[in-house]
């Protein structure tokens, strides 16, 4: 049994840690790149969304390297993410690979018995002691949490750094190093080390950078390749960005939901606009947009893959939020043919707009404010 798992942001690092802790052989997928996408979109159905194409690309490339057990998270609707496992399974079979799939569905969806059976298949293959297995699981969670925290720190501090590009460099360094570590302990060490280094980055507190919230479909915002490295681009412009959705958020929210914990404020904020769940993270997207202004954000950028049904619903609501809360929101839709130049132009234009708005507000608050201040046209951003 050689395990592999898709690149879903930091999930891959957690899965790697888990495999090391369980002493299971594994194939670590390369960070997503144009080859992954080319292979994935060649074999995937034409109209399926971008995340599936990347996940399939990961699986096929790993299968070529000898992986035969695919780990994938599942869901039971209404978004098509739940059908990924079925499609990937059939495609790999058609290509002649003999693979087993371990689909992590929620026990409430597939039944407790099936859930335990699936966990059992993973646990049974591991030679280590049951206590070690639990420890490996705990470590994997700690790793993904730490990674997410590091990312968030880097994205935020980029707006304040004195030497431009330092946060971005550290982010790159830790990402490359952490993929090469040999044991969970080593991974933790690297992460803690880089946590300290990021804290030590000289920051200029007097800077007042633009703050942008990244919202939208979870896969495309946690996997930098699929959103054309939007957060790193923002770092380059000296903009602080914030993103709520992350793998560790997902775990916390999943566990907390039945106990009415988790991101209650977000759900509460989305209720006036979207009362019912539309699948995926459409409700979260709307809630975050509604909260962005109160969180001190200058604007929000929604990213989702072409054809994502829940986010299309969210997108149609965002103009109303824009008007209500007075915060500009831009939507970027990505797929395998997204051109980078046009993408950058739009981001730059959006940032210019945010800057312009800020200057205008400052002027407006000045006692000799111009009398006929032109209102920011909030429609059609």
């Amino acid at each position, binding site marked *: 049994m050689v395990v592999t798992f898709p690149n879903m942001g930091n999930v891959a690092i957690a899965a790697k840690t888990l495999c090391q802790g369980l002493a299971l052989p594994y194939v670590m997928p390369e960070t997503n790149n144009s080859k992954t996408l080319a292979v994935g979109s060649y074999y995937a*159905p*034409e*109209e*399926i*969304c971008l995340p599936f194409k990347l996940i399939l690309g990961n699986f096929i490339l790993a299968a070529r390297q000898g992986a035969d057990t695919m780990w994938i998270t*599942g869901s*039971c*609707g*209404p*978004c*098509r993410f*739940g*059908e990924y*496992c*079925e*499609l990937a*399974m*059939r495609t790999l079979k*058609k290509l002649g690979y003999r693979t087993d*799939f371990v*689909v992590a569905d929620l026990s409430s969806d597939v039944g407790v018995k099936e859930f335990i059976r699936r966990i059992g298949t993973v646990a049974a293959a591991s030679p280590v002691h049951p206590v070690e297995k639990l420890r490996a699981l705990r470590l994997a969670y700690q790793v993904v949490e730490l990674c997410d925290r590091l990312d968030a720190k880097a994205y935020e501090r980029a707006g304040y750094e004195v030497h431009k590009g330092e946060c971005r460099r550290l982010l790159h360094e830790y990402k490359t190093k952490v993929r090469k570590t040999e044991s969970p302990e080593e991974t933790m060490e690297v992460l803690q080390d880089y946590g300290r280094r990021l804290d030590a980055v000289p920051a200029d507190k007097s800077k007042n950078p633009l703050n942008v919230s990244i919202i939208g479909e979870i896969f495309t915002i946690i996997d930098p390749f699929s959103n054309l490295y939007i957060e790193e681009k923002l770092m380059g412009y000296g903009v602080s960005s914030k993103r709520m959705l992350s793998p560790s958020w997902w775990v916390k929210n999943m566990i907390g939901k039945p106990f009415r914990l988790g991101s209650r404020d977000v759900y509460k904020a989305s209720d006036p*606009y*979207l009362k*019912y*769940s*539309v*699948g*995926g993270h*459409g409700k979260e997207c709307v809630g975050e947009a509604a909260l962005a202004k109160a969180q001190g954000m200058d604007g929000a950028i929604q990213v989702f893959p*072409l*054809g*994502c*049904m*829940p986010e*299309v*619903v*969210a*997108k*149609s*609501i965002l*103009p*109303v939020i824009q008007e209500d809360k007075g915060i500009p929101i831009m939507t970027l*839709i990505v797929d395998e043919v997204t051109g980078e130049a046009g993408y950058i132009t739009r981001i730059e234009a959006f940032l210019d707009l945010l800057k312009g708005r800020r200057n205008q507000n400052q002027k407006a608050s000045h006692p000799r404010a111009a009398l006929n201040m032109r209102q920011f046209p909030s429609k059609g951003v």
Partner: protein
Amino acid sequence: MKIGLPRGLMYAKYHTFAKTFLEELGAEVVVSPPTNKKILDRGVRCCVDEACLPMKIFHGHVDWLKDRCDALLTPRLIGVRDKEYICPMFCGLIELISNNIPDLPPLIDAPVTSLEYGKLIKWAKQAGGFIQKDDTKIALAFDRARKAQQMEQIGYNEAGYPLKIALVGHVYNIYDQFINMNVKKKLNELGIGVMTYQQVDRGDIDAQIQTLFKKPFWTFAGEYYGASVYISKKGLADGILYLSSFSCGIDSVMTELIQSEIGDFPFMVLKLDEHTGEAGFDTRIEAFSDMLKRRCEFGRHLS
């Protein structure tokens, strides 16, 4: 009281129920005209760009109706069977129309999670309460509407043609002659009879779904899959024509699953959106029918 009923999306399947229910409650029902170019244009103007064609057309119907009635019946369809869903866009349909179409009359938007009696009667009381305050009258109207819906036969199975094609896809694509450019007439003219996938029993569909690793959580998607596989196995038709709307998430998955299951049984997917040209559509249908004819002439082993 005038209640508007948009002739879009699930109207194709549940119009008898909706009309009877409203009429029995004493409301005057205003139905928008059959889809036409003007309605499509209205829909495209107000709908979010990324939505699929049937959604845009629904917006057009709502836009047409908004000045002509006192309220609109647009239930929020979350699911039609227990613990299953339909397309996620339906869950957010009310938000789509209320945020994109200005000056809407009140919407009767009580959610429907299942068509089972116990749950649907709750919906009826919520929705009917808008027109009629008397609960017993609502219950009576509901029962009559249900009976009328059960009497209604949806779909057709034409005999008397040398060849037969099964139409599979969303009801709002199969039965809306504007969206599908009257594909039935086109096929008939080519000497091909048409059957719709509703001719396959639910039991047979369920038996086919069992072969999947994961039972589809979209009710209708399961029906398309089960019916297509059953039709191909039993040879109920000579080919399958899947009418799919562009950027439909469900179709992107189901066409692939069906194709991988039925092997080399003739199967064609036609994509529909507001730019679909009729000439190209005709060419593809003609090519498909030529292929079917040749297949029948020379025997099935050749293709």
